[in-house]
């Protein structure tokens, strides 16, 4: 299912957050939404499942305007992994089962239970199934939340900084997992990210936001040192490493990043 955002603008009260944003994501594709803090990444993601209503412009889900759909209909097509989840005091199995909410009527069906079991096996979460979610580590919790999103059987997956609270190993594990799910089930995935190298590693296309506007969009070729300096205000170099592009900030060129006492020319470790 193609998700396309057309001329979308959004404002909180009188404060404009997004202006004339256009972007599109297709099945089998991971689109990374990049940009500095406050650029409107999370707001854009929330507009994509109608959690926020844009002031102008539309979000099209396939052929349909998302605002013409009910919440339940949206939830059957679009799953959302928020940046922060309040861990409820239930077992992982129950927490994942909650993802069936858009499909269940009065009560869960045996099929719902089995679908949760499928996801648990695919994610190798069997060892966690009957453990309580509120006692889990950040990485485990994130996997449970992603499992809950997948058991919704969505066609579009929205992830808000899915790796922000994870250690290095878990970051790559989660991203590899998301990529394989996207390709296996032909999902359309959009995620906001801060880590440019993680984005370059796993995403297929990129949307760079700056002050609520799309500054650049496209494949890996749009990620240039010039562009990153313009969007983030940090001079970087891009190097090939192991067959892929790696962004390396060289902070010494920027006076604002120098610590007091640093002599000019000292490379700051990032």
């Amino acid at each position, binding site marked *: 299912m193609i998700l396309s955002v057309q001329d979308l603008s959004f404002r909180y009260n009188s404060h404009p957050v997004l202006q004339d944003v256009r972007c599109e994501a297709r099945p089998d594709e991971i689109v990374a939404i990049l940009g500095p803090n406050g650029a409107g990444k999370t707001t854009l993601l929330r507009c994509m*499942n109608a*959690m926020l209503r844009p002031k102008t412009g539309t979000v099209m889900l396939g052929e349909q305007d998302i605002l013409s759909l*009910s*919440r*339940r*209909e*949206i*939830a*059957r097509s*679009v*799953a*959302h992994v*928020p940046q*922060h*989840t*309040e*861990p*409820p*005091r*239930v*077992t992982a*199995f*129950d*927490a994942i089962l*909650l*993802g069936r*909410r*858009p499909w*269940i009527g*009065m009560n869960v069906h*045996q*099929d719902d*239970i*089995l*679908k*949760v*079991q*499928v*996801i*648990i*096996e695919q994610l190798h979460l069997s060892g966690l*199934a*009957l453990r*309580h979610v509120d006692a889990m580590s950040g990485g485990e919790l994130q996997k449970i*939340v992603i499992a809950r999103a*997948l*058991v*919704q*059987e*969505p*066609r579009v997956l929205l992830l808000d900084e899915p790796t922000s609270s994870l250690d290095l190993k878990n970051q790559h594990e989660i991203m590899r997992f998301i990529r394989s799910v996207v390709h296996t*089930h*032909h*999902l359309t995935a959009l995620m906001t990210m801060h880590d440019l190298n993680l984005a370059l590693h796993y995403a297929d296309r990129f949307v760079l936001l700056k002050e609520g506007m799309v500054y650049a969009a496209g494949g890996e070729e749009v990620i240039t040192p010039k562009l990153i300096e313009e969007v983030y205000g940090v001079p970087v170099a891009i190097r090939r490493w192991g067959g892929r592009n790696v962004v390396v900030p060289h902070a010494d060129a920027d006076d604002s990043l120098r610590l007091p006492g640093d002599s000019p020319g000292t490379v700051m470790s990032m």
Partner: protein
Amino acid sequence: MHLDISAVQEPGAYTGYIRKKVLFLCACTVILVLLAFVSVGVGSVMIPFADVIQTLVYHSSGNAEMIIWNIRLPRVLAAVVCGIGLAAAGVVMQSVLRNPLSSPYTLGVSQAAAFGAAVAITLFGAGTLGRLISDAIVVNNPYLVTICAFMSSLVATSVILLVAKYRSTSPEVMILVGVALAALFTAGTTFLQYFSSAEQIAAIVFWTFGDVGRATWSDLAIIVAVITPCLVYFMVKRWDYNALDSGDETAKSLGVNAERVRTVAMFLSSLIAAVVVSFLGIIGFIGLVSPHMVRRIIGDDQRYLLPGSCIVGGIILLGADTVARIIIAPAVLPAGVLTAFLGAPLFLHLLIRGTRS
């Protein structure tokens, strides 16, 4: 996306885990029913268990018939139904406000309802003074009392919902709001007493102690008519409450209209509190204690927590009333006094331990 379920087996461990919860609910139900039968026989006149069964099933003549059908049975049923209702209101409030310290009593909703009912009784003449101290006040217009209690409880609920809108509201802050509301409405009730006659003061004071012995068959009919649809609604929405437990953002992404679910749940919880207060007076802590007891045993899943809390709420209020009837027999204590003895220590324990373990 479609998940192929043909290759997986039923998760046995999970099924067993669910079976335990169902077993717990069944065990509680059996305890409640047994307690009800025992309770019917207990009081200043003790009726043997066999006679209770015989009177209930076959009817009989004589004292037992009169005591059971006119006094004990409405009392027992009122305790069970109101215990269930208060527990349901408590567990739903705790869920939608994401605050484990919530209940109609701790948030001041019950006190607000009491004020509304007192207004109806003293100013609108919905109640008259009885001759006996045991029925110090006779409500002769239960509808007016309930409506006034409900209107007043809605004022408290609106304040709570407004405060809850501020995101950073911690459970402790919400309890302080409850303290403020309770103080305000209790002051209102005191204000009414100031302008009342001595008999009216006695009546109001007596009436603010929650006592399940006040309910008549017709009161019971109104209580059941109000509480039953609320319970059905809560059960239908139990998945929404589960979703809200994971935060508003998650709930919305699962297709739940978080604001509406919260507002309707608070509205109906207030209605339950209002109807209970109108007929029985203020009975505290049932809505706080029973969800916490059940949560300890079967966890936070609303599918089981909600019915479990209801049944345990019925057991606690009925148990409290049964003890209240025999502890200083032949005199009868108001059940509300006993539930407070049970609930206040637990409330302190929750505050000291921290609300989120």
